[in-house]
C-alpha cells in the first residue's frame, strides 16, 4: 500500500508542478541569480553569489530599491552544470527576468542564442564568449569590463613592462576546456608580433588536482614567465607545484579567475609573490561595502559565513556584477521614463552604461575599477585590469590600471564575431551609426 500511496503522491506532484503559478513581478525588478553554492566549483561560486545578492539587498534596505522600486533577487542553483543552468533559465525567464549572469562559460554559451528570442540580455562579466564584445553582432550579450583576449593582452603588456618580453619564453598553463582554450588564438598572434615563444601546458578537468607531470614539463621547458587560465581546484594545485619546482612566483600570473582568496588561503605562505589579474577592488574599505556591512551583513540578511569574507576578491567581483546591473537599471529607467522596466529596456541600459570615476565615487566605490563606458558597438567597455600580488596572507594591488591593446584585440574580436554569425543566417545583429 505504501508504494501505491507514494506513486499517487508523486503523480499528484507532477500534475501540480505543471500549474505552478508564474509570479509576475508587476511592481518590482526581478533579477535572477544563477548560483553554484554546491558542486565542484562551489568554492568560487559561493562568495560571488554572496556579493551579488548582498549588494542588491543593500539597495533594497538602504534606498528601498532602485528609484523606489524593490529588487527581487531569486537564486537558482546550477551546480556549474549547463543542463541545470538551462533549466534554471527556463524556470525564471517568465517572471520578468531583467538579465542573466550565470558565471559559467557553458551556461553562457547556451543562453547567448536564447537572449534575442526571449529579449533578456546576458551579462557575462569577464567570461563567456570573447567575441560578444562586438556589440553589432551581439546586441544582447555583454562582457564588461573586458574580454579574455583584452585581459591576455594586458597581462602581456605587464610582462613587457617588466624587463621586456621580446625573446622570452612564456609558459601558458590552462584548463583544457572551452574556457582555457579561449585566449590561445590571441596568444599565438601576439607571440609573432611581440617576438616571444609560447609553451602550452594543458591541464585536463580530471587532472586539476594532479599536475605534477605538467610541472615536470614546465621545469624542462623553463619558461621565463608563466600565465595561468585556471578555475577551482586547479589554481591552488598549480601554485603549490610551482613553488615545489622553485619557479619564481613573482613571474607566475593568473588570470582574474585564478587569483581569489579561496585559491590562495590554503596555499598560504608558500604562495607568496604569486601575481594575478583583477578588475574589481580589494577589501571592504569602500563606502558602498561599508553600507553592505551595515545594512545587510550586520542585520543578518547575508549568507556570508564570516564578516571578514566581505571584501574578498570573488565577493567583490559578484558585488561589481550587481553594481553594473543596478546601474543599467537606473539608466534604463531614465531613458524610458518607466519605473518598472523590461528585459529589452535593460539591454538599452546595459548598452549605455557609463561608470566614470565620478559616478563610481557617487556609488561609494571610488577607484574600485577602471572607467567603464559601453556603446552600441562596444560591449566590452574599457577593459582595463590591474595586477595584484599575494603577500602570504592577503592580496595587494601592485600596479595601476593596464589598458588592453585594443588596436590588436579589437579587429580579432570583430573577426571572431563575424565567424560566429557567418553560419547563422537568421542571427539578429544591429547596426551602430
Amino acid at each position, binding site marked *: 500500500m505504501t508504494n501505491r500511496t507514494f506513486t499517487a503522491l508523486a503523480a499528484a506532484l507532477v500534475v501540480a508542478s505543471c500549474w505552478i503559478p508564474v509570479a509576475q513581478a508587476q511592481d518590482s525588478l526581478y533579477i535572477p541569480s544563477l548560483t553554484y553554492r554546491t558542486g565542484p566549483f562551489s568554492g568560487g561560486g559561493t562568495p560571488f553569489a554572496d556579493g551579488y545578492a548582498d549588494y542588491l539587498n543593500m539597495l533594497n534596505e538602504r534606498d528601498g530599491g532602485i528609484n523606489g522600486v524593490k529588487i527581487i533577487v531569486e537564486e537558482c542553483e546550477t551546480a556549474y552544470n549547463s543542463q541545470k543552468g538551462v533549466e534554471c533559465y527556463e524556470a525564471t525567464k517568465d517572471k520578468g527576468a531583467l538579465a542573466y549572469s550565470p558565471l559559467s562559460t557553458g551556461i553562457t*554559451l547556451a543562453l547567448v542564442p536564447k537572449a534575442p528570442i526571449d529579449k533578456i540580455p546576458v551579462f557575462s562579466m569577464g567570461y563567456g564568449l570573447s567575441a560578444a564584445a562586438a556589440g553589432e553582432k551581439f546586441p544582447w550579450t555583454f562582457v564588461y569590463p573586458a574580454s579574455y583576449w583584452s585581459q591576455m593582452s594586458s597581462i602581456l603588456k605587464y610582462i613587457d613592462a617588466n624587463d621586456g618580453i621580446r625573446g622570452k619564453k612564456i609558459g601558458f598553463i590552462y584548463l583544457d576546456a572551452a574556457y582555457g582554450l579561449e585566449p590561445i588564438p590571441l596568444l599565438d598572434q601576439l607571440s609573432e608580433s611581440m617576438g616571444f615563444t609560447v609553451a602550452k601546458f594543458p591541464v585536463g578537468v580530471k587532472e586539476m588536482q594532479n599536475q605534477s607531470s605538467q610541472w615536470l614539463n614546465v621545469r624542462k621547458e623553463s619558461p621565463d614567465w608563466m600565465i595561468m587560465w585556471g578555475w577551482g581546484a586547479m589554481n591552488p594545485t598549480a601554485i603549490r607545484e610551482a613553488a615545489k619546482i622553485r619557479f619564481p612566483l613573482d613571474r607566475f600570473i593568473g588570470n582574474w579567475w585564478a587569483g581569489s582568496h579561496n585559491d590562495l588561503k590554503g596555499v598560504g605562505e608558500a604562495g607568496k609573490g604569486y601575481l594575478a589579474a583583477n578588475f574589481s577592488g580589494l577589501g571592504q574599505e569602500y563606502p558602498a561595502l561599508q553600507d553592505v556591512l551595515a545594512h545587510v551583513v550586520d542585520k543578518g540578511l547575508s549568507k556570508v559565513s564570516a564578516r571578514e569574507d566581505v571584501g574578498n576578491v570573488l565577493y567583490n567581483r559578484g558585488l561589481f556584477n550587481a553594481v553594473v546591473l543596478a546601474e543599467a537599471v537606473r539608466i534604463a529607467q531614465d531613458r524610458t521614463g518607466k519605473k518598472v522596466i523590461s528585459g529589452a529596456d535593460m539591454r538599452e541600459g546595459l548598452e549605455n552604461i557609463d561608470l566614470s570615476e565620478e559616478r563610481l565615487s557617487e556609488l561609494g566605490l571610488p577607484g574600485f575599477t577602471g572607467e567603464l563606458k559601453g556603446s552600441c558597438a562596444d560591449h566590452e567597455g574599457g577593459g582595463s585590469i590591474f595586477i595584484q600580488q599575494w603577500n602570504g596572507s592577503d592580496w595587494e594591488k601592485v600596479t595601476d590600471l593596464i589598458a588592453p591593446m585594443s588596436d590588436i584585440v579589437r579587429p580579432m574580436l570583430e573577426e571572431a564575431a563575424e565567424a560566429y554569425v557567418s553560419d547563422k543566417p537568421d542571427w539578429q545583429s544591429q547596426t551602430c551609426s
Partner: protein
Amino acid sequence: MLYREAGQFKTSYAADQALLPILQDRIGLSLILLVAFVGIPLLATDFFIGSVMIPFLVFSLAAIGLNILTGYAGQLSLGTGAFMGVGAYACYKLTTYFPDINIILLILFSGVFSAAAGVLFGLPSLRIKGLYLAITTLAAQFFLEWCFIRIAWLYNYNDSGAIEVPTRKLLDIAITGASATPVVRYLVIISVVTLMALVAANVLRGRIGRSWMMIRDMDIAAELMGIRPLRAKLSAFAFSSYYCGVAGALMVFMWIGSAEVESFDINHSFLVLFMVIIGGMGSLLGCFLGAAFIWVLPIIIRAVPQLIGLDLLAATTEHLTNIIIGVLIIFFLIVEPHGLARLWQLGKEKLRTWPFPYASN
C-alpha cells in the same frame, strides 16, 4: 480484476503475437500516447515541456540504448556519455556540410556514426566480460572525450571549443535553434522517441533480441545452440550506440542548444547507467521509469518548498534534493532490486486478482 484477460480470445497467430496482447495494455498505452501527443502540448507550460518532458525523453532514449546493451545483452558499458557525444558531433558536422537536408533525418543518421564507434569499442567484448569490459568502455569514454577537445575540426574550429546549434526549419517552422518553441521541439522528440521505442520493442522480442538475451544468460550455451557471439555482441553494441547517438544529437539540437565536452562526460554515463539500474535491467518500461526517477523527481522535489510557501535557500534545496534522491535510490534497491519496472509488474499481477486475491487459481 482490472488486468484480467478472461474473455479476450485470440483467433489468429498475428493476434497472439501482438506487441500488446492484452486489451488493458493497449488502452493504457493509447491513453499515455494521447496525453503525450495532445494533452501535454495543449495544456502544459513551456517550463514543464522544455525542462521536464524534453530532458526526460532524451534520457529515456539514452537509457533504452544502454539497456539494450547492458540489460538485454549483458555487456556492461560506461561509455554512454561518449557515444551520445559522437551522435551530437556527427549531427553537427552533417548539418554544417548539408544544411538543406532535413535536420530530423540528420539526427537519425548521426546515430550511425555512433554505432560505428560502438562496434569498434565493442570488439574487446569478444574476449572479456563483466567489469573488465566496463574498463574498456571507460577507455572509449576517455578517448572520445579527448577527441572532442583535441580535434578542432569537430567543432568547426570554434574559439571556445563548443558547438552551437544553428536554426533549421521544417515546413518554415523552426525546429532547432533558439527560435524553436518548446512545443515544436517536444513534438519532434516525442515522435522520434515513440518510433524508436516501438522499433526497440519489436527487435527485442524477435530473433535478434532473443540472441542477445541468450548471450546474456549463458554465452557458451548460446554458442552451442548456434548463436554467433561475434554477431550478437557487436550487433548489440551497434544497436545500443545508435540509440545513444540519436539521444545525444537530440540532447544538443532539441534541448540545450549548445554543447562542450563536459556535456558528454563520465557523469552522464553514470547517470544513464543509474537510470537503467533503478528503472530495471532488461525492461523498456524501466528506461522511462528510471529516467523519470533520476531526472524528473529532483525537479519536483525542488519545486515543493516553493509550492508550500517555504522560503528555502536554493543551495539548501539542492542539498536536500540530493539527500532525498540518494535515500530513495537505496530504499528502492532494497525493496525491489530488480528496479521500478519489476514493481509495476508485481502491481499488474496484484491487479489481475484484485479485489479477490484469495480467488486466484
